[in-house]
């Protein structure tokens, strides 16, 4: 049995769904960030799988490189913000960080 595009896409879809699940169900900011990392990896897997099986050259790989790079920048800022929140609220749970209401 040969490994096809669909195998990779399935792995990607599972990762995406798990990431989505983490974002919806988790309360801790860092846990949510981990969910987002899973989604970004699902995207990368898709891009690279498509680029290989579609014979599309390195476009897919390049976009993945930039995605990784942006993930780094995002994580750095996220960490700074979460630490700041922790200083102000003494928690990183977003349920407890809710001073504004309708």
């Amino acid at each position: 049995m040969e490994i096809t595009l669909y195998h990779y896409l399935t792995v990607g879809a599972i990762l995406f769904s798990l990431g989505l699940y983490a974002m919806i169900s988790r309360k801790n900011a860092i846990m949510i960030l981990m969910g987002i990392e899973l989604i970004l990896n699902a995207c990368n897997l898709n891009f690279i799988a498509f680029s290989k099986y579609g014979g599309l050259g390195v476009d897919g790989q390049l976009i993945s490189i930039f995605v990784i790079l942006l993930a780094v920048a995002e994580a750095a800022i996220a960490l700074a913000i979460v630490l700041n929140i922790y200083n102000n609220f003494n928690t990183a749970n977003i349920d407890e960080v809710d001073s504004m209401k309708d």
Partner: protein
Amino acid sequence: MNNFTEILKSINSFLPELSVITTLLLCLIADIIIRKKSPIVTIIAIAGLLVSAYFVYMQSAVQESLFSGMLVIDPFAVFFKYLFILSSIIILIFFEFSNEIKESTHKNEYSYLILSLVLGAFLMASSVNLLMMYLSLELASLTSYILAGYSKSEKKSSESSMKYLIYGAASSGIMLYGMSLLYGFTGSLDIYEISRYLATNPTPNAFIYLTMIMIAAGLGYKTSSVPFHFWTPDVYEGSPTPVTAFLAVTSSAAGFSLITRLFLTTFLGSTQIVDGAFSIIAGIHWQEIIIVISVASMIVGNFVAIWQKSLKRLLGYSSIAQGGYMLAGLVVADTIGLTAMLIYLSAYLFMNLGAFFVTILIVNKLGTDDIEQMKGLGYRLPFVGVAMAVFMLALSGIPATVGFIGKFYLVTALMKPGAGYLWFAIVLMLNSVVSLFFYLKVVKSMFLERADNTDELPGIKFSVQSYIILILLLIPTIFFGLYFGPIVKLAESSAVLFGIR
């Protein structure tokens, strides 16, 4: 063509962005040298933006593709670049006025953060490549996360930055997944290639809906459209007011530029425009998605805004609704709709910035943006109060203000014979009646109600500069409402997307 010569040639047309980047670095260096709060950095930033505006002006009638198809220059992008420059200059001035910023601990970071958002917005307005779109969107988003948390010791501000970050990262991740599917299907990142592929290959509906909804999640988040709007009220309320104004005007305008270019270019069947109508690829019903988003944004934004007590939060919900109106222009998918959208965006710039400037002034004096606390305030600051009333009426689209012109053109576009959106036009107008309810709430609180001690409290005076800024925002709000020829002409000549003739 040789890559190197092409890059060199592209750089020539990249001068607006380059001057923003240079200014950004200059501000950074100036900040390090000066080491304290100083208007000099702001002045450098404004000067840089003006230089950039000059280079944008030089590109007025250009249609050109840059950097091997990463960016384009066209009148559409130029229009948005003007919009970004104008709004960010005004907001840089707002920063000088706001006490929230003066009290914050940092020095001049905001000037280069704003410049980097402007850079991101510039790129968003002219990207034609999925990678470039994602990258520029992220540049703008990252900057806005930082700006939202600018008053970092304020609980609300840091909370808003965290919420913004989490929702933002999540929705851009979802958008990226959608882009990966689009890439997999069409085999290209270039939206013109994608368009060509979609036009010639049968496209399953399920695929196009899923992909478009995913991409709309990322873009709708930037334009704070329902159902991707959850961050908006909290971030608008929590961020320092100038930042809120910046997010409401510049950042969401950038979102609109991207969403418009992406949707209109990608789904174009042929590049010929007949009678101003774009020929959309048959069988792809992307408009339905936008219609749902647009109507939902209007209704949710307007109806929830009625119950708000915080002025900034109210403006947040109102901007959700205003975004819904603007998307109506996209739905029509022709030159008139596009023109109407651009007119509305420029109208929105003046009236919304005006409303935010009054908010800044009031928050400076009262220390709160609670509408209840503004009872009888109109009698203590008559001019500012009247200005606020004008901006509020403009936002709700009463004639003789620029807001009406925006609505008028949107409704006209929707009612164009053959467009078939009469019901949409009625929904839009009825929504603007509802919106009047909460816009008047602000006016009511300031003029119609009186606090027990209104008469004893002294009048509130502002600096001459604040009055000047206010008048400068009032004049276009009313003038373009009475004489809207110039604004329409500008918008109309700008409704030209690269490659569409």
